[in-house]
């Protein structure tokens, strides 16, 4: 496969300059970290630019790194240029008290449920989303279950003691 990282990085840097925080290869994937407020502009540029043509949203999901103070939460976007078979990953990171992200539904209809899922599990709110409600969990769940501090099992249970097995 041709080396696509420099090509994409150059056109992104020309357009957005310092808003592209980092660009690196992660195994076979070019990965770009973008400033949160510019993410939609970056995606739109990648969508419209005749050289780039990233017209397919493969995946969108949240991540939580409690140890990265000030950048605990993140959203990961996987875009795909089917014409040239380029895949890239975009990511944004932000603090727990600043969870409002611009919505991608204006560009991709597919983002609708993916963003609802991300909201459902991480509490990330997507500004401008047409229907931002919980999608998989019950409406009165309370809390966002994919955050790392959310326990997998009921912590008040005392009938199970398997600390030796790493649970």
């Amino acid at each position: 496969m041709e080396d696509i990282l420099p090509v994409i990085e150059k056109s992104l840097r020309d357009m957005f300059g310092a808003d592209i925080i980092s660009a690196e290869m992660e195994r076979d994937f070019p990965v770009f970290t973008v400033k949160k407020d510019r993410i939609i502009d970056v995606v739109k540029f990648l969508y419209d630019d005749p050289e780039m043509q990233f017209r397919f949203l493969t995946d969108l999901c949240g991540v939580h790194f409690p140890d990265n103070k000030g950048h605990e939460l993140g959203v990961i976007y996987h875009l795909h240029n089917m014409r040239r078979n380029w895949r890239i990953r975009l990511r944004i990171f932000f603090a727990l008290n600043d969870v409002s992200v611009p919505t991608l539904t204006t560009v991709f209809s597919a983002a609708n449920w993916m963003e609802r899922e991300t909201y459902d599990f991480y509490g990330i709110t997507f500004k401008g989303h047409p229907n931002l409600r919980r999608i998989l969990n019950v409406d009165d769940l309370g809390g966002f279950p994919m955050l790392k501090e959310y326990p997998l099992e009921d912590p008040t249970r005392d009938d199970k003691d398997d600390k030796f097995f790493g649970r």
Partner: protein
Amino acid sequence: MSQAKNQKGRVVQQNAPETAEKLEEKEYSILNLGPSHPATHGVFQNILKMDGEIIVDSEPTIGYIHRAFEKLAERRPYNQITPITDRLNYCSSPINNMGWHMTVEKLIQVEIPKRVQYMRIVIMELSRIADHLVCNSVIGVDAGALTGFVYVFEEREKIYEIFESICGARLTTNIGRIGGFEREWTDVTWAKLKKFMKEFPAVLKEFEKLLVRNRIFMDRTIGAGPISADRALNYGFTGPNLRAAGVDYDVRVMNPYSSYEEFKFDIPIGTNGDTYDRFMVREHEIWESYSIIQQAIEKIEASTDKAFHANVPDFYLPPKEEVYNNMEALIYHFKIVMGETDVPKGEIYHAVEGGNGELGFYLISDGGRQPYRLHFRRPCFIYYQAYPEMIRGNMLSDAIVTMSSMNVIAGELDA
């Protein structure tokens, strides 16, 4: 109200802006389709807004069988996540299993012997056939033709018997291991596989004779639930549903895994993206899968290598006789079963062509015994959101066949 006729000659309601006010004045009936309607083939609800027989709008509700797989996966060693993937698309669980194994193998960078790759292809294509058979025959059932369903389910049963002879399970298979297969395929497996390959074409031809040029079936399915290529791409469609709309995207060709690049097969595509096209694309894919299996069997038989797993002692369980007689093997066995093997740090996205589209695994590893984050890109979940748009202006009976032709599997939808 402006009306137009679609290609079936049916009256289709246009949602033109100038008629929007008049539409508001009308009183619609609300119809609750699901959550446990027999025609939804799974637990999901659709609240339809109906103007007589015509669907004006619909509101899907999903999540009835959500089982928190992504959260569970964060507390399980890599070996123990395979059974979770079974329960995603349970009509073709071996593809999910293989996809997960390949993701982990990509992370720990293992070279898989060619023979194992071909064996995997046989398994994956068999399960693709099983998946498509279920989907296609169920379109027939929902259109009122139960006969074909009964015919092909016998063949599906034979495929499940092959899986059973390899791994002991039928539906939720947990087939294979990280690094290869748990044991060599037995003579029984080969006999069953050969028998299936010999008898299957006749049955599939019979099934096609029943439906493909059937006037009633064509009337029911042509023009039902169409979607254009543009909208399908925008909605993130993949797999047979996208190909039915006319885009020749197939992960097996775009990003070959498990040596798919060595195989010769066509990607069938449709033109209108309606139910009939989806049916036909799946039908042709079954033939392509059949030919891939034939090629793979030839390659396996031609290979001199007899390996059925790669050399990854950190992940692949040692044979039992060694575990009982050799201390090293016992240690490895214990480490693997308790999930105490560390993996490299990294961030992986690996996609396979699942039964109904690009099944992706996005895995973040922090070097520990379990994934830091695992996200499944589930094709069903992404394309099912287009359902309201696809059935708008259609009739209720079209909505039923559209849903079955989209192959929405509740397990994958809700993860």
